[in-house]
């Protein structure tokens, strides 16, 4: 469902993603791990069509995103790292706008909006202006827009960033549930999330894959701990 072939992305002389190749099938939840600056967000931005690749190909459900961007984007729900929202809209206004862009109108639009409000527990803030929301609700609102069109592919960039433990638990549970039928890729710094939600995980560093496998195989590789494997394989930008 997501096919990445020899993906390279350069910004000037800096190589952010270096010849990355992987695929994610339906029913798989791939955890994307890596230190800051490893290329996780850049990879996700190329997969979702926000930035073009320097070289290589990305296909979403067999559709090349570079050549048929609108068709491929219809298949994707994306939660960017910063959970961007239109500050001057209400939660329901924002979701209705996103639903319109996704091709919904009339009763179908209201139905889709009601569905994601329920899925993401936004009932109490529906009429609230987005600029007054807490971080947790902002994240959930942005997650809600990614689910409106019931996409086959979900790309979530740090979906539990800044959430409290209860909210983290709910989001991880949601990812597990959605992952049964969809193709999900999400990035995280929280290694326990890999065990909680992923069927597969990948550690990337300096734009390259340094480890890949199921949570169990990665744990074994790290002598019983994914954290140990992470620390062994990735470059620290902090002096020891």
């Amino acid at each position: 469902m997501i096919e990445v072939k020899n993906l390279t992305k350069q910004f000037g002389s800096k190589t952010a993603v270096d010849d990355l190749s992987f695929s994610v099938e339906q029913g798989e939840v791939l955890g994307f791990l890596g230190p800051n600056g490893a290329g996780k967000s850049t990879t996700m931005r190329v997969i979702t069509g926000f930035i073009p690749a320097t070289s290589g190909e990305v296909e979403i459900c067999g559709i090349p995103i570079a050549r048929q961007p609108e068709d491929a984007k219809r298949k994707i729900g994306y939660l960017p790292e910063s959970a961007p929202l239109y500050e001057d809209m209400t939660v329901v206004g924002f979701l209705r706008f996103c639903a319109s862009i996704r091709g919904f109108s009339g009763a179908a639009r209201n139905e889709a909006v009601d569905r994601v409000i329920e899925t993401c527990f936004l009932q109490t803030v529906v009429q609230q202006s987005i600029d007054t929301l807490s971080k947790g609700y902002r994240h959930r609102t942005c997650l809600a827009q990614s689910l409106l069109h019931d996409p086959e592919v979900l790309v979530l960039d740090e979906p539990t960033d800044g959430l409290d433990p209860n909210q983290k638990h709910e989001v991880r549970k949601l990812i597990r549930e959605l992952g049964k039928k969809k193709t999900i890729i999400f990035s995280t710094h929280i290694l326990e999330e890999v065990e909680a939600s992923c069927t597969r995980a990948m550690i990337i560093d300096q734009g390259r894959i340094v480890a890949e496998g199921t949570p169990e195989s990665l744990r074994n590789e790290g002598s019983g701990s994914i954290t140990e494997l992470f620390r062994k394989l990735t470059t620290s930008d902090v002096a020891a």
Partner: protein
Amino acid sequence: MSVIGIFAILLLTAALVGGPLLISNIRAIFSREVNSFFTSPLAYVLMFIFLVAVNALTFLWPGRELIESEQAALKDFFFYYHPWILAFYAPLLAMRTLADEHRQGTIELISTMPVRTIELVCGKFLGSFIVLFASLFFTTSVWITVSVLGDPDHGPIISGYLGSLFVGGTFIAVAIAVSAVTRSQVICVAVSIPICLLLCIVGFDPVQDFFADSGVRVLSFTGELLASISVMPAFVDFSKGLIELRYLFYFVSVIALCLFITNTVLQNKRA
């Protein structure tokens, strides 16, 4: 100018190579823009200042006061000021359009939805244009005033408003093109306003007379070239009641060119 016009329209057509525009996308985007504009207190302040400026200049400019002139015509007392006021107002309307998307980070959201860049650009343009239309609508109090006090010829007034809409639309398109290049609203306004003023000045009668009366062929030619890119000759004719096809073509071309530039800059900026 017609060569540039044809070129501009061809470029915009090239931007549509990916297929017809989805009107529903454009409608969703400009509805959002208009709603966003009217939820901001700044918008009401801007519109208020615009209306005060238009009315003050019409009724109070020394030597050109509308009532004292005892003429029920708006060309020299009302429409005369529009291009100059719009050169400031239109960039102020349009400065937020793309800068806000970058500031809020929502450019990442909208760019990963099935919306083509040209649909986003058209939606943004129409959003500001509709606000401009509303602003000009509220100036019809002047039209009502002369209709009550006298017996004006309504044809030139209607074509004058059409001219103002086209001039304002052109300036909005210029400001949107500038806003695609810079993320700062201040820089957008600081660059757009001089460009819009220049588009007025180079076709303004005293400037044109300077070039025409110079007696030097190069300067006369330069004067004609500048008149062909200025909004003034077109606007003056519109305010007299003359709607010429070549001027309609001029406005559409400049708007098309600016929207194409915006589309290209946005697409290449992320590469």
